[in-house]
């Protein structure tokens, strides 16, 4: 009996650690596509600092909406991304499935459900001001890692207190996976995405540009 209690408690402990820990390189959003604009149930929060992120966005089409919806990742900084739609390998044609091509969901009909996999590869950011790294930015190495700086001011601020800015080179800020009806140009679903991390969300304002 004692062994069983111990095993139960060990299982609870391991499971608790697993449940509490968040894998911050992926997120799942559930939303509704509506003619008058749908919202995701809750924003997706991703930890900054990774090279690659995966967002799974599932949505159902609420009647009476039907049409084509362009899907784009929008935000202050352009993040390279690709979108793939989950579908059967062999479509037996039993039920209607919207098509996805050229960044657009085609022929959405009431009660359709879609599941999109969005792979995002955000650029590294200036650890001081949060601006996305671009070619021509100054670089500096610290503890085996290369950081970029938009200008002299940020580089000096980093050099004065590198520990403060260490590992803050992940892109931060608010983004949206926007579904827009191609005919009316109106949003039919917005999925908010937050890249959070050391320094907080969208804190690219320590150094004003």
């Amino acid at each position, binding site marked *: 009996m004692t062994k069983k*209690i111990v095993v139960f408690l060990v*299982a609870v402990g391991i499971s*608790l650690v697993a*449940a509490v820990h968040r*894998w911050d390189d992926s997120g799942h959003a559930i939303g509704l596509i509506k003619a008058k604009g749908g919202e995701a149930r809750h924003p997706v929060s991703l930890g900054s600092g990774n090279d690659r992120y995966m967002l799974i966005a599932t949505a159902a089409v609420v009647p009476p909406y039907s049409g084509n919806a362009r899907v784009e990742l929008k935000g202050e900084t352009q993040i390279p991304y690709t979108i793939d739609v*989950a579908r059967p390998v062999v479509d037996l044609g039993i039920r209607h499935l919207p098509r996805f091509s050229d960044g657009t969901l085609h022929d959405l009909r009431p009660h359709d*459900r879609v599941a999109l996999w969005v792979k995002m590869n955000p650029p590294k950011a200036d650890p001081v001001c949060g601006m996305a790294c671009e070619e021509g930015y100054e670089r500096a190495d610290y503890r085996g890692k290369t950081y970029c700086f938009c200008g002299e001011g940020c580089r000096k601020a980093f050099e004065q207190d590198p520990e403060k800015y260490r590992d803050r080179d992940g892109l931060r800020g608010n983004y949206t996976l926007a579904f827009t009806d191609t005919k009316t140009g109106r949003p039919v679903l917005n999925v908010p995405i937050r890249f959070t991390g050391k320094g907080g969300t969208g804190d690219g304002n320590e150094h004003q540009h």
Partner: protein
Amino acid sequence: MATNTSTKGSFWSRYRTWIIVAGIVLFLPPLSLLFQMTADSNFCGSWCPRMFFTWRKGMSIHEFLLGFLRSYMGVALVVGILASTFFLGRAWCSHLCPIGGTMELGSRIVPRWLKIDFSSIPASPFRYGYLAVYLIASAVGLGSLCCNYCNFATVPRVFGAAFLDADLMYFLRTAGLINLGLVVVLGFLSKGGRAYCNLLCPVGALDALSNRLGLRFGRKMRVDAAQCDSCGACSKVCPTWSISVHSAATIDHLSCMPCRQCEKVCPKNAIAYGRPA
């Protein structure tokens, strides 16, 4: 004590492997036939059998019930599994589940020296420790095991990744790789291929309760203690390590599924599938 009429030669016993293969073909990519009936492509969506019964902190009753509607086929599946288990034992787990079936069939082609024997872990306490956290952690807002650790999400994508980028993407993230690791270690590499089912499946944990509750009424694996000579052959082949042998073999019905492996190897025909005597 059971009336021991051998069921070794029955259809469900003889053709179990082929029934599992049929379940895999019907449920999993590339065909995904049953999912396509509801415009799905895998268990994630209206067929999800795990998410609807988890309560998340801050959720209204309306949202909780909407989860039942969203996963209506998953609800029907779980209700069907629990009801059939009460009367027939865990036939879903042993014969029909394409996820457990894939892991078991996969484990059969893994060389014996690579297999990991998890039978020293008391399965029921571990399983219900996991289930407790599965239900409570999300209800109190501590986090969630649901979706983050799910072989029902992983195994179909193991098949689909060969064909679709969307399924491949599942594994291009930490959670996907961890899930794959769990399926490999607790499935393909485990002795019998059913350690995941036995330790970490929340539906299996509920199903086991139904099995135990139906013990006095339904068809289950039963031991005729008078015929048993305690040779232990049954215990060695049980994929869910649910048989212990002392003066006679006894079956833990919180772990047993009627895979009939024990029945096949019993030299005394002391184990059979049937109603209580």
